[in-house]
């Protein structure tokens, strides 16, 4: 089960690791970003991107470019890369990469449910779904009106089924329930993935567990911060915290009791990493906590490339590319809306 370590890793996964490292070399560097931020129009942006690994990905788009098109095609590009790796992967890397797709499935599902609740057209919603999170019965999501139906008719076919069990007992699909479903699913997913990585052992466990713990902590903090002023009770909230992460147990306990951002800050006071992030966020008006979390995530992902013979880089590749697309979109958005002042708020990767 364990992916070989130094001795056997290359037998099955060496080729793919090499490919990912190749893709990593194409990730935009800070020089590229500096150039991108100097673009006057989206046309300039296109021209500059055509000189990078993105190549002619916008070549066949007619002249007035939109940010949405850029984001969509950039996403499509890394999704294609990811898929080409995915189809070549063998177990256990295949399962690992399956796991990487689940969060997108969860997001898509939630998007579809909320969309349906607001009576949006399903095909329009489908276009908005993330391509990595597609599953067969996605389109029929709108049939379901209660969580139970949802589970019985649709989710049961997807890999998300085991995560959904806790939600079946909910009565109906209201906005807040959908949010709860999302977070419950996410929690179950994180725990499952964490266990999966831990089982794998070696460097994979080492790198992935660190990242996943961070992910869990981030979710816990975000849930807490976002829950203020909503109808979510503290008990319910505590149930959404993943059972992993460095905040366990004390930090989580304190978080579960938090009533306002101040208490959240004191809850994480004993954890230097998060305390530093909080401090920076409070001192620096430009950067939100969210951005700082992303920065931290990028740093963690970057670190995975320092080691060899582990699966963490597949995860890191996906996350870094996602961040890169966010960056490009941000820059493009700033350019098209003439908000040059904010253009430097992207998160450089290399």
């Amino acid at each position, binding site marked *: 089960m364990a992916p070989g370590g130094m001795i056997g890793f290359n037998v099955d996964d060496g080729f793919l690791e090499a490919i990912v490292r190749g893709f990593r070399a194409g990730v935009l560097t800070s020089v590229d970003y500096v150039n991108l931020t100097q673009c006057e129009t989206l046309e300039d942006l296109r021209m500059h991107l055509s000189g990078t690994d993105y190549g002619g990905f916008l070549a066949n788009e*007619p002249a007035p470019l939109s940010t949405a098109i850029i984001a969509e095609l950039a996403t499509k590009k890394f999704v294609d890369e990811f898929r080409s790796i995915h189809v070549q992967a063998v177990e256990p890397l295949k399962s690992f990469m399956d796991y990487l797709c689940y969060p997108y499935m969860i997001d898509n599902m939630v998007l579809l449910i909320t969309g349906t609740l607001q009576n949006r057209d399903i095909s329009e919603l489908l276009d908005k779904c993330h391509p990595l999170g597609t599953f067969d019965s996605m389109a029929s999501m709108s*049939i379901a009106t209660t969580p139970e139906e949802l589970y019985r008719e649709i989710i049961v076919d997807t890999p998300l089924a085991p995560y959904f069990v806790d939600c079946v007992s909910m009565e109906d699909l209201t906005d807040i329930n959908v949010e709860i479903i999302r977070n419950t699913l996410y929690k179950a997913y994180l725990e499952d993935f964490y266990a999966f990585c831990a089982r794998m052992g070696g460097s994979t466990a080492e790198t992935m567990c660190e990242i996943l713990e961070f992910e869990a902590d981030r979710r816990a903090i975000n849930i807490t911060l976002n829950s203020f002023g909503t109808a979510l009770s503290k008990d319910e909230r505590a149930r959404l915290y993943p059972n992993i992460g460095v905040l366990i147990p004390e930090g989580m306990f304190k978080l579960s009791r938090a009533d306002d951002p101040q208490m959240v800050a004191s809850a994480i006071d004993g954890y230097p990493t998060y305390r530093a992030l909080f401090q920076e966020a409070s001192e620096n008006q430009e950067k939100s906590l969210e951005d700082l979390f992303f920065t931290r995530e990028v740093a963690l992902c970057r670190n995975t490339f320092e080691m060899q013979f582990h699966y963490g880089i597949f995860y890191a590749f996906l996350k870094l590319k996602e961040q890169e697309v966010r960056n490009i979109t941000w820059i493009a958005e700033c350019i098209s809306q003439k908000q040059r002042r904010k253009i430097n708020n992207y998160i450089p990767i290399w």
Partner: protein
Amino acid sequence: MRRGSASTSQMGLDQLRSREASLGGGGMLGERDAVGVTSPGAHTPRGGGAGGMRAAGNATGAQKRAHARATGFSSALMPGRSFALFRSERMVHVRLYFDRAAARTTVEELGDTRLFEFQDLNPETSAFQRSFAADVRRCDEMMRKLNYLKAQVLEHDRSALDKSAYDNFDEDEDEGLSSDVRGAALKHTSSESAIGMDDLNHQLESLEKGMQDMNRHDQLLKMQFHQYVEMRLVMDFVAELFLDESRLSLQRKRREQVRSDNKGTIQAKIGELLDPIMHRSSLLDDVEVEEPSALSVGPAKHFGANGADTASGDNRRPKFRTGSSESPSLSYFCGMIESSSLTAYERMIFRISRGNAIVRVSRNAHTVFDPETSETMSKRPVVVFYSGDELKNKIIKTSQAYRATLYTIPVDSSAQEVALARLEERMRDVEAVLESSARQRNEILGQIARDLAKWEATILREKAVFHCLNLLNFDTSVRLFLAEGWCPEASIPEIEQALEEGRRRSNSQVASLMEQQTFREGSAPTYFRLNKFTEVFHSIVESYGIAEYGEVNPAPFLVVTFPFLFAVMFGDIGHGILMAMYALYLILAERRLARKALGEMVQMTFQGRYIIFLMGVFSIYTGFIYNEFFAVPLDLFGTRWFYSMESKMACGVDNCKDPALALPPLVPYPFGFDPIWKSSQTGLVYFNSYKMKLSIVLGVCQMFMGLVLSAENARYFARPLDFFCEFVPQAIFLLSIFGYLVVLIFFKWNVDWTAVTCDPDGLLACGPPDLKSILIGMIMSPGSVPRELSLFPMQAVLQNVLMLAALISVPWMLFPKPFILRARSRTRRGYSALEERSANEFVLDDEAAAGASGGDDDSGDKAPFDFQEIMVHQMIHTIEFVLGAVSNTASYLRLWALSLAHAQLSDVFLEKLVMLPYEAGSVVGMAIGACLWLAATIGVLMLMESLSAFLHALRLHWVEFQNKFYNLHGSGHKFAPFEFRRAASPADE
């Protein structure tokens, strides 16, 4: 020769045109010299250009082509540029000034000469900030439109693209092959493009728009047609279903009548139906019963509405029609669904209805073309029976999710017939419209296809020109464009001609200027004019490293040594003939083959056809020396040995008075080995001894040649230190040990050992001494030579001297150079301040012309002198040479080893596969053996063995030969002239 005549004709024609009758033939020649031989050093931009300008003014395409061919072919052969392959051609750094109006045409003309490398004058500016970024973008945009049209043409009909038109642009021609065709095509487009870019843009735009409109229209019609097709399929299926099942049900009913008295009510039957697992087959009855209610809704009316709907346009979403009434009892949908999602669909229907809906699927899948995705897919008609409104909505949504298209079908058979008839009628109509629009489309696409290749070339060319213009500087003070770059010194007239032609074409009044500049040593690019013959040899060298500017290029030597060393390992007349014939075929058919897509292996041999040919020819030669023809010795001149019954040994034919003495022949076999050796028991020993020694001799010669070339480099670059502190001791070292060995070899060969009379008290050896022992003895026990190893008097003294020389040469290689360098750097430091100042002045002067060339004129010279580094480097170099001298010499023994392997392998194949069956006398065995022998000869010897010999020859050249002199001071960079083929090729893919 060729060059002479070609250039005479070219320049002569030009002159003839411009000066017409005023000058006779003699004048023509004189003029040619004046222009052709103008020494670039003394060349003033204007004066020299004058002749060229006028000439160029009248130059027609034909002359230019002739000219292109002349320059292409000339290279190493022509007198003025002789040794073009030996050293990089002399390059000059020039600065060109031209008017803004002339910029585009000038760059285009320069691109056509393929002789000018532009330097990027604004390296700091990113791509989109350059002056012509907008034009590049416009080209991109045009390219996008063109790609759209191309895709349309391809989609429509691949063959419609005028293949031949594309071939002209695609093929990777050698200079001589088809450059005239291509040149003509490009010229043609270029002259057009000057005016035509805007027009072309408009044309492309209108075409694209037209195509898009047409496609949209077509799409609508096709969608409609698609729906009709599907609908008919569904109708057929429904009709079949109902027909079949009603028949079945009739039988069933009869049976039931017999069995049970209770007919049951409608409701009861629906109840039956709703439990489909138990009563699957009872469905039909119920449907029949339901029929009236379905009919009452009037499906025909629905259908009419449908048609209108579809025509009106919103085709993107599938239409859903309920097949029947609002009645609370049983209703159904029918439609089409993709075969692949069928199972999931059925499962989903089952799940949402909790088994209360029944799906009926046709057994036959139909292949349907979906215009929306332009894909053909396999679809099946499907009918879903359900009951209740709640379920209806869910089924609609599910169907939507699974991309099932639902249709309304009248249930009544007569209504069905009416609907079918109407449907067919509509289908005919739509089909007719589609057909006529397809015709129209064909016509337009045909027209487009004809011009596509031309347009593409024009746009790519235009884009390349703008890219190039982006590298230039616009001097606002004099309102001139400024280009800097490299060109071969010998091509200055061509460049000037291009400048003038560019000016003329743009009707610019401002003359273009050219100015030569000084350049820093080592910054010039390396350029060799190659032809299709020298190309392959040069590419072998270049895969090792690109020659420094001015450095000796080993390629011209490779032309001979490479095939020769190969042949030493591959000596066999028969194999050589096979190889040469194959290569000859490739050479003779090269025009045809160059156009064809060959397999990877064949392509490789095609590229190396000239070297393979030479390898074959040399193999024939060495084959004659080794006297092997498919491992059979040829007795061409009559063997000089004679076997007699009296003795085991053979004796010379002309010296066989007493056979028992077995004396060698007085007159040897005139060429190569005597054929008798092949059958002799001592043959192998004899061959080995010869080949081994030969390898050493060849190796030492080639290595010494390498050393000599390093001396030549030292001379050329005026590095006396390299000559006296590296070449001289290295040569002494190599010659004193291995040169001595070679001398010994020849010495030993020259002694007639049978005639040596042995003096018991003498100092010299009586029999042939072992040369290895001599060499080992010379190093291990200097001063004493045992008698059986002495070849000549004073041998010990000579050996001592040589040893001493070799020993001295090692520290000589190691120490002087670094110390002298250090001493020099110390003296120079005293002057450094002054030097710096003068350098600054120089820069200031230069700045007046243009502040452009900054950045690259700080140099390695001023880097602080690091004695340690140089010492270490020198130490490595020395150790490498000293050890290398031994190991490289030993390495040449591979010549012998491979030659032996080759001879033995072909021997074994012949022996075991041909001779053995022949001796056994079996005809079948002989036939099989001959086939196997042929297979082994081609597969093992001609392919594998030759490949291995090739690789070993390659290694001997790269490692043993070239490391003596090539790329010792770092490699240079290649001259990359601006040319259209290269600029266009990446986008071509």
